[in-house]
């Protein structure tokens, strides 16, 4: 049943996709239908783009190699923001969770910085770090950091008292407790938030590019908007979406490999 049900579901999903594409094509084509809403037959295509032209644009970008440097920049910014934000969040999270004084002192500040709409920092970062990659990475880091930080903080706080006491009875020093109990426990929370943090690293990179840059997919979209080239805007959005999905899939794969020790729902294997 599940296999067959899965296949039917896939067919329906593909069908829905085809239907949407078809509707988009029919409603925006200047020649197929008489204008329904706009007074000029070309206006629908102008405001919503045309699927065939969008596909053609994507194909052109990839076949001519035009998009690779931009894509590379965006992905590199994402990766850097993700790695730096995660490491910082991990270190600061562990430090604050294990030091009562530091966490009491910094608590209101962390809450304030987290509550602040941090996208607003993008222009400031552009001033500080220039229009190159550094400012985009910085923006992504501020987004990723807090997710990881709060998860690590929570993870350390939730370490089972018994597991901790047991490790101490087995002879763990403070350093070994950190390495063998606190960090693994915190890591499980970090992995739980991985989908969020990778997604936000990507958002940071693209938004940063969009607000001012000379390279990257966000920059391409901005350029296209500047010339009212809606097909290119949609093509850029589709490329970004596809890569966001790819990143998400990679995270799922990493998660499955690294969190084998966690019970999954529905898993009943016991002997």
């Amino acid at each position, binding site marked *: 049943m599940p296999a067959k049900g899965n296949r039917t579901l896939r067919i329906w999903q593909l069908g829905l996709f085809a239907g949407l594409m078809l509707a988009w094509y029919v409603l925006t084509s200047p020649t197929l239908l008489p204008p329904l809403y706009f007074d000029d037959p070309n206006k629908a295509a102008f405001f919503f783009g045309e699927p065939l032209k969008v596909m053609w644009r994507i194909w052109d970008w990839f076949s001519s190699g035009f998009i690779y440097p931009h894509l590379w920049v965006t992905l590199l910014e994402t990766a850097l923001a993700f790695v730096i934000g995660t490491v910082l969040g991990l270190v600061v999270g562990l430090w604050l969770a294990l030091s009562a004084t530091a966490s009491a002192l910094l608590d209101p500040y962390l809450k304030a910085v987290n509550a602040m709409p941090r996208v607003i920092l993008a222009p400031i970062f552009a001033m500080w770090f220039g229009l190159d990659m550094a400012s985009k990475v910085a923006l992504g880091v501020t987004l990723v950091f807090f997710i990881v930080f709060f998860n690590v903080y929570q993870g350390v706080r939730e370490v*089972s008292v*018994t*597991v901790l*006491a*047991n*490790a*101490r*009875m*087995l*002879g*763990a*020093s403070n350093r*070994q407790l950190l390495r*063998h*109990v606190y960090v*693994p*426990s915190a*890591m*499980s929370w970090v992995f739980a938030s991985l989908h969020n943090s990778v997604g936000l690293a990507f958002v940071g990179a693209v938004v940063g590019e969009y607000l001012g840059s000379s390279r990257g997919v966000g920059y391409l979209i901005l350029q296209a908007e500047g010339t009212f080239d809606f097909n290119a805007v949609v093509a850029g959005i589709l490329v970004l979406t596809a890569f966001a999905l790819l990143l998400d899939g990679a995270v799922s794969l990493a998660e499955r490999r690294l969190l*084998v*020790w*966690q*019970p999954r729902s529905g898993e009943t*294997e*016991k*002997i």
Partner: protein
Amino acid sequence: MPALALEDVRVTFVSPDGARYTAIRDTTLRVEPGEFVSVVGPTGCGKSTLLNVAAGLLQPSAGAASVFGERLSGLNRKAGYLFQSEALMPWRTALQNVTVGLEFRDADPRQAAAQAEEWLRRVGLGGFGGRYPHQLSGGMRKRVALAQALILDPEIILMDEPFAALDIQTRHLMENELLELWSANRKSVVFITHDLEEAISLSDRVVVMSAGPESHPIGEFAIDLPRPRDVAEIRLAPRFIELHGLIWAAMKQEVLKSYARQRQ
């Protein structure tokens, strides 16, 4: 010289709002090397508190604990502790959980693994080393915890109702296995339980605690049943029933007191 001695121990907890709660008072307990002592008492009588003092996890408010004549400060390095609740690291396999104590002592990883394999076999889990705790049943997790503590060859084994969560058959099996392991290499054992039958069938001596708060020992009984014992069968021996009656008479009032207090 006793392996473990608690002298006039008193433990008073102070909560942040200033409320004081004395869990145990005037408690003296001596355990000889190689002796198996059970501490029984109604629920909430501070048995676990007593064990935590012996382990060095808890500093007594008054009195002192000593290990082989040496006053205990900090953790009791000569003791292994079997906890009542889950204490295995869920991110380590059974084998890695058993080796962790050796790892903390910087032992050679390959030797540690070989030794752990041997211990897993001894507790009946040969071939299960690669499984994570969540893939094991409750009884198997307890066996891993047992191997984890015993691989370090502690002089004193502290056990806090380790089998309370198990079903009765698994429990009898585990108790027999424990006795077998213990008789092969006699260490001092302090075994906490609220189950009088379990206490009698395992121990050389049973100490009865009064109902809490301010719990203290109210009786001590030597168990002169022959060894080796089978915990399921020995319950039918006339001497067992006699001892049970004797100790229960001492315990009954305390159990009723504790029950009445809980109903308030």
